[in-house]
């Protein structure tokens, strides 16, 4: 396979992803039993369904709805919530939720990145792998429950502000970073990539020349490491839904959960789209790193005249 095919496929996937997710949700909305308008405004509960349908662009079929939704989303306009906070702009809800989720994921990345660095430089002993794996088998929901109990016993069930709120965030990050094999996968995955590279002949040459192994191997393993990094961030984003709901963190995941429970398609589409856009950005980043690395390793060395 030519070197540029994978980055090209990734770029295509990155461009398609934010279009596919709303398309799927639109199809689901029309595939559900009954008229989509009845989900927004059940006839037995409210009147003026036609006007509401027009306001939400549900009156002219799925393609019309989808086209306008994507167009508005590109201008960061997501309409109003259907049920979670009825009438409230979804954009404002997202603006409140995204920073919490971003902070949670960034904090959760700390143990994962530390594990990867330790594995890369050989400080993470192989003997500890079974322990890490055993600990990583713990489901996120169980660990979250334990930490939620710790916070609630010490600070009360409704303690969401100040230090207890920060503690929920820290515990959430710890759960995300360790549970479901996040840390174990990071350590073992990074080590295996480096170990495979160490068997290459050029590494032996580099050692004979007195060069450092890490800097010789890094350009060649970088695409694989960035791929792993992307997978782990997606994994953390996915896990954020459970952790946020159990620990009471008001982030994008808990917003998506509330939207799903209440069939609020306005919130669900916007939240899922935000996740898709973030995933697309990561795909683009990976493609860029792959292209950059390919150009770097193929560059002809400057030979002195």
């Amino acid at each position, binding site marked *: 396979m030519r070197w540029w095919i994978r980055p090209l496929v990734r770029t295509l996937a990155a461009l398609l992803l934010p279009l596919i997710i709303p398309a799927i949700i639109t199809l689901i909305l029309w595939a559900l039993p009954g008229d989509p308008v009845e989900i927004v405004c059940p006839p037995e509960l409210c009147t003026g369904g036609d006007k509401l349908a027009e306001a939400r662009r549900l009156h002219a079929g799925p393609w019309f709805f989808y086209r306008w939704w994507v167009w508005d989303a590109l201008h960061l306009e997501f309409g109003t919530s259907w049920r979670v906070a009825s009438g409230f702009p979804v954009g404002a809800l997202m603006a409140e939720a995204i920073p919490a989720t971003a902070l949670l994921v960034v904090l959760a990345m700390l143990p994962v990145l530390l594990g990867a660095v330790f594995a890369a430089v050989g400080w993470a002993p192989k003997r500890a792998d079974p322990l890490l794996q055993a600990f990583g088998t713990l489901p996120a929901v169980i660990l979250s429950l334990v930490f939620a109990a710790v916070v609630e016993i010490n600070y009360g069930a409704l303690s969401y502000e100040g230090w207890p709120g920060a503690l929920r965030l820290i515990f959430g990050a710890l759960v995300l970073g360790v549970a479901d094999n996040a840390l174990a996968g990071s350590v073992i995955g990074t080590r295996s990539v480096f170990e495979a590279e160490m068997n290459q002949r050029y590494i032996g040459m580099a050692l004979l020349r007195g060069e450092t192994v890490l800097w010789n191997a890094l350009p060649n393993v970088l695409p694989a490491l960035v791929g792993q990094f992307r997978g782990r961030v997606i994994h953390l984003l996915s896990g954020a839904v459970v952790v946020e*709901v159990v620990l009471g963190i008001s982030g994008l995941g808990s917003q998506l959960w509330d939207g799903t429970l209440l069939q609020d398609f306005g919130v*669900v589409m916007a939240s899922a789209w935000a996740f898709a856009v973030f995933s697309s950005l990561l795909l683009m980043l990976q493609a860029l790193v792959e292209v950059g690395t390919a150009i770097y390793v193929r560059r002809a060395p400057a030979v002195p005249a």
Partner: protein
Amino acid sequence: MRKGTATRVTWLVVAVTLLGSIVVAGWFAPEFLSRPNLAARELGPLAAPPLGTDTMGISLVEYALQGANVVGVPAMMSALLVALLATLAGLARCAGVGWLDSVLALFQELVGALPRLVVILVVAIAMPPDYRSLLPIGLAWAILSAPAAMDEAAATAGRLGGARFVEALRAHGFTAMRIYVYHIVWLNLRSVIVRQGAEILMQVVFLEIALSYLAVSQQQPAFTHSDSVHSWASLLYDGYTWLVASVPMGHAMALGLTLVALVAFMAQSFRLSARPR
């Protein structure tokens, strides 16, 4: 029998016994829970054998059986789906079909880029309330998890030599069936397929527990089963009241955690049974 083979067979027996127990327990699950018996509420396993009762005096055995019914078959089907997709990816690499490799690469990129739980919630929202089941959610989870399994299976097949490996075996006079099914799938891909399948089996059970717990904790109907059925998450929810409010339901927490541990042990047994030589 060689020592390594005996060990693998032992782990396989353990794993199959545990999986069989979950599926069979599901068959014996009552359709509805018994009537509440307030005289026997919150009793421990010693006072109300074998597993104690809940806050309504209902035996926890019924919860355990209903939970097994919710997860047993869907988790197994999801595992089989992942195993099938991984096998296909491995065979495609060996068959040397270039376009299929490219199509699989695009599929892996697209599906692998999706945050799984986000998609699962989208699937959940699409299910009519009367048809709530873990099966569509589990199968969706399996498809979302497939890229990793397919990638590993394809890489394993690639390390064999891909199409050249098949060519060499053909030169020995083996039939296509023997080459693909025995030499490639059974001898080389088995460990990857079983390990990935076991992983998904465990993940689907944990996913069910997580989704049901979130619903139960917010007093909402679950996405994975009907309202008359209770998942293992109900045991954890009751146990949580013991942790934070000292309601005497520690035995429910212990039972819930034991079931979770058994599922993890079953997955590990499958992995150990399929270790490469």
